[in-house]
């Protein structure tokens, strides 16, 4: 499926200093000795992918793990191997305490124009409870470093709903983050993942699980604080100043194509989802032997496409266009409008791209409505109850693959 956001590349960097209690991402804390070989593998894999897919790469996202743990020049080598367009959005996820002025300068020189910083909280007590290594003072410093080096976009990730986090602490974290020079904020409800230290403590009863009502209240607070600071929601967990939206993520939610580089990286190309082998060792090995580290490739069926369109599209402010969908789905959407979970009509247009490939905000909101106005998107209450909305709609899709 093509998306208005072009084609992207996701690069996974599976190294961290310490594992946070809640995190179940593919990352390792004891394999820094593999970094050099890993970067080499990523470079040669990226080169091979570019030979196979010579078209434009419009955005690159370095996610982790902690990409800022790599020597910054090494990260630049991977960017070069991917040959993104000159205007491409290039994002790197960094941790506040492993991101220095030097990182910022070298990144900027390599074309990195967006930093996404894992801050999680501005309350040191909460940070300790989450098992984080940095403190709040690292954050402002890191943001200044990015800005000082001329990096255009800065995002901060926050997590809300730790049982030790009071409502006031949360308001303070959001406000502090918004007072830094950022144009994007991601706020994630703390999720208890099985297999993590947090998951184990909750299962054993030694830690409390986050409370849905507390998280709902905190979510509403974010939305208010962001809107009044000039950042508006464009995906359930993401707010941005106009033009600050992350193109790479928008591409994912729109069902667009992206390549996958690195261990455990997921990609989507030409109607198939796929992911690479999980461990860095196996990734290095696969790239150097067969040259193909893909572990699983799942072609998308028509049914998959419907469901994924709902699952991803509904998360965004643009919503989904149900024109041509089964009547029962449209009727259900209308019922959900009645109970205040959906609104008819998208909330705003997906950004248009001008000649230079930059998003423009010139489209008016109505132009994105489906031909017969069958576009639906979530209300604020609907965003919090999105699973219900999605499963209600999906349950009216015809079964079968």
């Amino acid at each position, binding site marked *: 499926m093509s998306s208005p956001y072009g084609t992207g590349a996701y690069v996974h960097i599976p190294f961290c200093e310490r594992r946070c209690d809640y995190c179940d991402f593919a990352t390792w804390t004891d394999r820094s000795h593999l970094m050099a070989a890993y970067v080499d593998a990523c470079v040669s894999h990226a080169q091979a992918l570019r030979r196979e897919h010579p078209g434009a790469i419009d955005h690159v996202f370095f996610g982790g793990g902690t990409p800022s743990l790599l020597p910054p020049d090494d990260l630049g080598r991977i960017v070069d191997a991917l040959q993104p367009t000159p205007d491409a959005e290039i994002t790197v996820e960094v941790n506040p305490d492993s991101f220095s002025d030097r990182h910022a300068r070298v990144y900027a020189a390599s074309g990195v124009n967006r930093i996404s910083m894992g801050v999680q909280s501005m309350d040191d007590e909460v940070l300790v409870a989450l098992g984080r290594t940095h403190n709040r003072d690292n954050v402002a410093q890191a943001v200044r470093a990015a800005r000082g080096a001329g990096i255009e976009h800065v995002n901060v990730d926050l997590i809300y709903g730790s049982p030790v986090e009071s409502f006031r602490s949360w308001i303070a974290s959001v406000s502090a983050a918004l007072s830094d020079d950022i144009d994007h904020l991601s706020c994630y409800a703390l*999720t208890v993942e099985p297999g993590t230290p947090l998951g184990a403590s909750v299962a054993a009863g030694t830690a409390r699980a986050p409370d*849905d009502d507390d998280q709902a209240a905190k979510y509403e607070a974010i939305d208010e604080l962001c809107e009044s600071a000039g950042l508006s929601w464009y995906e359930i967990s993401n707010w941005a100043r106009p033009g600050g939206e992350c193109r790479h993520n928008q591409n994912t939610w729109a069902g667009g194509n*992206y390549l996958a580089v690195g261990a455990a990286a997921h990609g989507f190309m030409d109607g198939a989802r796929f992911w690479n082998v999980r461990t860095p060792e196996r990734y290095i090995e696969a790239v150097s032997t067969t040259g193909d580290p893909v572990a699983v490739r799942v072609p998308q069926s028509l049914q998959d496409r419907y469901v994924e369109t709902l699952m991803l599209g509904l998360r965004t402010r643009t919503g989904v266009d149900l024109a041509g969908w089964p009547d029962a789905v449209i009727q259900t959407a209308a019922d959900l409008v009645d*109970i205040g979970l959906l609104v008819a009509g998208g909330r705003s247009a997906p950004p248009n791209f001008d000649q230079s490939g930059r998003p423009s905000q010139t489209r008016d909101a109505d132009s994105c409505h489906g031909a017969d106005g069958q576009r639906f998107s979530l209300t604020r209450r609907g*965003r919090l109850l999105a*699973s*219900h909305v999605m499963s209600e709609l999906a*349950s009216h899709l015809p079964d079968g693959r």
Partner: protein
Amino acid sequence: MQFDISQSRCFSIIAHVDHGKSTLADRMLEVCNAVDPRDMRSQYLDTMDIERERGITIKAQNARLTYKNHTLQLIDTPGHVDFSYEVSRSLAACEGVVLLVDASQGIEAQTLANCYLALDNDLAIVVALNKIDLPAAEPERVASEVEKVLGVPAEECLYVSGKTGEGVTELLDAVIDRIPAPTGDPDQPLQALIFDSVFDTYRGVISSLRVMNGVLDAAQPIRFLNTGTVHPVDEIGVRLPVNTPVKQLTPGEVGYLIAGIKNLDEARVGETVSTAAHPGTALEGYREPKPMVFCGLYPVDGDEFDELRESLDKLALNDASFTYAPETSHALGFGFRCGFLGLLHMEIARERLEREYNLSLVATAPNVQYKAFTTDGNMTEVHNPSELPEASRLDHIEEPYSVISIISPSEYIGTIMDLAQTRRGELQRMDYLSPERVEIVYDIPMAEIVMDFFDVLKSRSKGYASLDYEIGDYRTSKLVRVDVLLNGQPVDAFSTIVHTDKAYDYGRKMAAKLRELIPRQMFDVPIQAAVGSRIIARETVKAKRKDVLAKCYGGDVSRKRKLLEKQKEGKKRMKHIGRVEVPQEAFVSALRLDD
């Protein structure tokens, strides 16, 4: 060995639960070399899986042994009160009993109840004090208790251990000495009493019987005197304990009969077997045990209704005391109202259905059978709270009472009386069996004992008190039906009939329990308990505010997709009470007795 009536003894082993009947029977089988040592296992006569697993006897079993030129026909009986009808039946085939008393425990409730049954039947009683191998055994003390309470002289009590086998031959000698040989006339028309019938998939009904007069001949057609039906005989035999065919059974013999009968109703317990050619007169049968406890059984998955019906049919083949009739619940769909002899019977039936027939079931709270009298003077039997006539037409309700006998160490008298009082018991009498042990007798509504009375009694008395009950009369009580409403809709499965004084308590507990069990919906769900139109308790399940997954990055799509499908599947298993979606599991947990 040729059967000689004067050398024969028929007896049952009776006792309180767990006093060691089946274990003693094992030793008797061994002493008489009835079982090949390679095939021997503990509680040999407990053959059902559920008996072996729970270590209790549910069905009486008989065996024929040869000992010192005598034919001993023994019946091992269950001790649990729910199955006491098995004991009564067995006694009709005997001239005597071995009354076992655990020497480390003393006389308990079913010791007394079973002893009275034996006395009612004019049977010779041989008392044996069991488990004398235990360090805690006090046979002398228990012997004097026996003398005082049962009137059997202490010096007549035998001391045995079913575990070590000590005293077993002396006990068998006493059986021969003290229990009279059967009498009967082989020349009279045949009269054989069926005292047990079980259904076998391959052979049909297999009945256990005792010949009183006349001769049962495998070659001659038989007639059942009560039903009047005539059948050719497939096989008759004796249990050694392995079924062994014989050509004839003569007076005083206990054996089995197979006559190609496919339905337990045609070979009911209490039936008299005679010959088709020269039918005799019918013997006195038994009073059919009546179900006392009822509950609705519903398949968790509505699609399993047919399987449930078939399984109940099969279960009933082997259990004539259990009843079932289809019923419909608004909340639970199609199911059956089932009647049981008691709570253990109910628990066992349910467990067998779930395990042997692989069903998962929701059981409604057990209730007794009420009699509702309407203002026009009509009476309705109420097996299910929803059958209760409207309050405006209702004149009064009667409920069944029972007479319970509790035997306990005297130190627990206070707490036991307190318990019985709160359960509306009326003290009838209290007798000291010995300075340390007391029997307390109450009249008490059956509804109060079918819930959790026994468990509470056990825990209050640290396990020492025992309970026996007998069905009593019906009495008028101040009873009301408590309904439970979800979002204004009554949920029939949660309705119950209780005494007015307990309505509030039930309502509050149920509402609180449901608040925990009902998942939050898209709107506030009030839970109310009501008596008629009066709300007596109220809780609210607050509307769900958040269910969204915080993050959905590329790698998550497949995983999140699976979650969504799972949710979709879960929805299918939901019951709808008005707009409220209730998972089946919530019914299962809300209706579970132990909370």
